[in-house]
């Protein structure tokens, strides 16, 4: 769907007027899309869930403007707990949700997917990285977010781009990764890919660490002891902060701290907590497309609604959640009905051009498994306390700095 032309808008307006003259029951059937939004807004994943929610809050108004579609959000809190996720999914379906969006955590998303499949309600996954979610042969589950191995692969390939752009190549590297769901699948992807992708460095050591570790002294000293020139890091926010601090305390300044696609380094608390030491850290990750007009509109709406929040810090969570709602709204517009099966079929036929989505990638098209392919990563570097797109060149908002200047 492109932007709404005047003629289309006029038709839609006339149609809406006509519809509003209809008896209430009929109007309710075709007027509004009720979206059950399942996010972890409390519990351990509260930070991410609330970030996703912000992207969603901005969506209905924007979608009404651009698509002429009425979207009603039914917010539900999964409480970072799989039992709650499942019962909340059942609840919103019972309350009339036509489509579900959620849920960030792969375990919760898997449970919700089963409910969705069983009840025949389409689920559009906003963020969740476990590959298995779209490997189950579901007919009602769709995901516009790359599985972790793909993110890892894209991230590794981009390393080559970084070295080419900076005209510097590290000869050795050490790989540290958090030992949780995401970290482990990334690590597997990296391990499988490193021999295939031609990267100039030799991997000296792989150091997994406990996500709940309160102290990463030993891990960092082990990494430092390898004397590697590059630190490849797969982390989460809390451990990224502890780890970077530890690096400074141990006076270890490698050429670069690069993540092939995990959260943490580009997040707000990382920059706030580490100040100048957060700068120059790089993450190769999915992101919003800074050149698309819809992205500008989204960012503007976000800024207006949440003036105290820097949009770049919510880039991934908010953008992917918005795009999930965009997909739902777009399908609704084409299906012209809230019938769940018709909606699912419409979603399956989605074809949103690359220029009309907030997140970066090719056209939004679902393959036979319900997965969107071609969501690419970009090189995001913390510059002046803000995550900035530096590569690919045509999208860059700032200049790549590599190697990292020595801190302090």
């Amino acid at each position: 769907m492109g932007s709404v032309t005047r003629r289309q808008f006029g038709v839609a307006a006339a149609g809406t007027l006509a519809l509003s003259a209809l008896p209430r029951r009929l109007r309710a059937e075709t007027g509004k899309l009720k979206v059950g939004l399942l996010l972890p807004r409390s519990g351990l994943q509260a930070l991410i869930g609330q970030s996703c929610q912000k992207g969603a809050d901005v969506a209905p108004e924007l979608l009404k403007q651009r698509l002429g579609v009425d979207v009603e959000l039914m917010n539900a809190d999964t409480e970072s707990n799989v039992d709650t996720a499942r019962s909340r999914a059942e609840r919103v379906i019972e309350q009339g949700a036509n489509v579900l969006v959620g849920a960030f955590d792969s375990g919760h998303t898997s449970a919700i997917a089963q409910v969705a499949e069983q009840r025949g309600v389409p689920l559009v996954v906003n963020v969740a990285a476990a590959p298995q979610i779209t490997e189950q042969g579901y007919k009602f589950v769709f995901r516009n977010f790359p599985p972790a191995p793909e993110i890892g692969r894209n991230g590794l390939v981009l390393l080559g781009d970084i070295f080419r752009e900076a005209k510097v190549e590290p000869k050795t590297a050490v790989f540290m990764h958090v030992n949780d769901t995401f970290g482990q699948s990334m690590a597997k992807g990296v391990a499988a890919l490193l021999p295939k992708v031609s990267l100039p460095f030799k991997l000296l050591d792989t150091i997994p660490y406990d996500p709940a570790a309160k102290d990463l002294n030993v891990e960092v000293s082990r990494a430092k002891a390898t004397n590697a020139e590059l630190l490849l890091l797969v982390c989460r926010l809390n451990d990224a902060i502890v780890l970077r601090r530890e690096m400074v305390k141990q006076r270890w300044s490698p050429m670069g701290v690069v993540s092939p696609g995990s959260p943490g380094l580009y997040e707000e608390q990382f920059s706030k907590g580490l100040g100048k030491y957060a700068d120059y850290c790089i993450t190769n990750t999915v992101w919003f497309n800074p050149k698309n007009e819809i992205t500008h509109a989204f960012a503007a709406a976000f800024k207006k609604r949440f003036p105290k929040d820097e949009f770049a810090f919510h880039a991934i969570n908010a953008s992917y959640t918005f795009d999930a709602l965009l997909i739902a709204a777009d399908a609704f517009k084409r299906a012209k009905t809230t019938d769940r099966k018709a909606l699912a079929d419409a979603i399956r036929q989605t074809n949103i051009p690359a220029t009309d989505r907030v997140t970066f990638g090719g056209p939004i098209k679902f393959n036979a498994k319900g997965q969107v392919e071609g969501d690419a990563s970009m090189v995001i570097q913390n510059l002046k306390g803000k995550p900035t797109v530096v590569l690919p060149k045509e999208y860059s908002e700032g200049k790549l700095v590599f190697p990292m200047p020595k801190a302090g």
Partner: protein
Amino acid sequence: MPALSHLANAALSGVLTGTVYGLMALGLSAIFGVIRLVNFAHGELMTLAMYVAVVVFQGLALDPFLTMIGAAAAFGALGYVLQRGFINRYVGRPEHSQMLLMIALAMIIGNALLLGFGPDARNVQTSYQLDSFELGPMLLDKVRVYAAGAAVVATALLAAFFRLTLTGKAIRACADNPLGARVAGLPVAHLYAVTFGLGAASVAVAGCAMVPLIDVTPGLGPGYTLLAFVIVILGGLGSMVGALLGGVVIGVSEALAGVLIAPSAKSMVSFGLLVLILLARPQGLMGATRR
């Protein structure tokens, strides 16, 4: 095989980290060891103390190590009132009853913190936060050294209190023989409340020492509660020095395990140690042998 200096540095870091853990467990050793209260809200109290330190830092630009004193006093008073006014009724109750009470409290505190502060991590930024002392080839994190210092001082103070002052001795009497203490006319409720207050004060000190090291989020509680219980059992119930020692043992063994085995499995070491201690020496390293 990693270099000796590497091992030594790891071990030394482990000692420092361990003393901070021990500091955190001090309070529980007093509360659990003396009152026998299964304080499942211990971690949440510590999280609360960390938030207090952050708020004071942001509002008054006061270094957490200075805030410690005020926080200790405040938490001490709060602890006294809480125990005397409310928790005291639960002291004799069966363990699962106490546990449920404290779990409910933990839930309330933890989620109230989420409501009040939001899920964002908060931290303090002191000027020396990322500095290290150099000791030959080894680097020692300044904050950890200060925290370890605070831990040793606090342990010494508490140990001295329990061993040398009259109130302290009375409290130990209560711990050894609650019925006898009552018969002897000791004001047990008051003494328990003092103990809880002291426990809470230690938690406050620990929180202030911890916050320059770790950002505080509302969900930190349960992890710390578990760690505190492990240290207290390891070190011996009711022994202040035991708590410190237990913390150091955990810190060092985790550090060494991290260097020699896989860092992601280093927590298994603490639990493995716990199992060993429970089977081999259930009263803990410094605990007195009980019947």
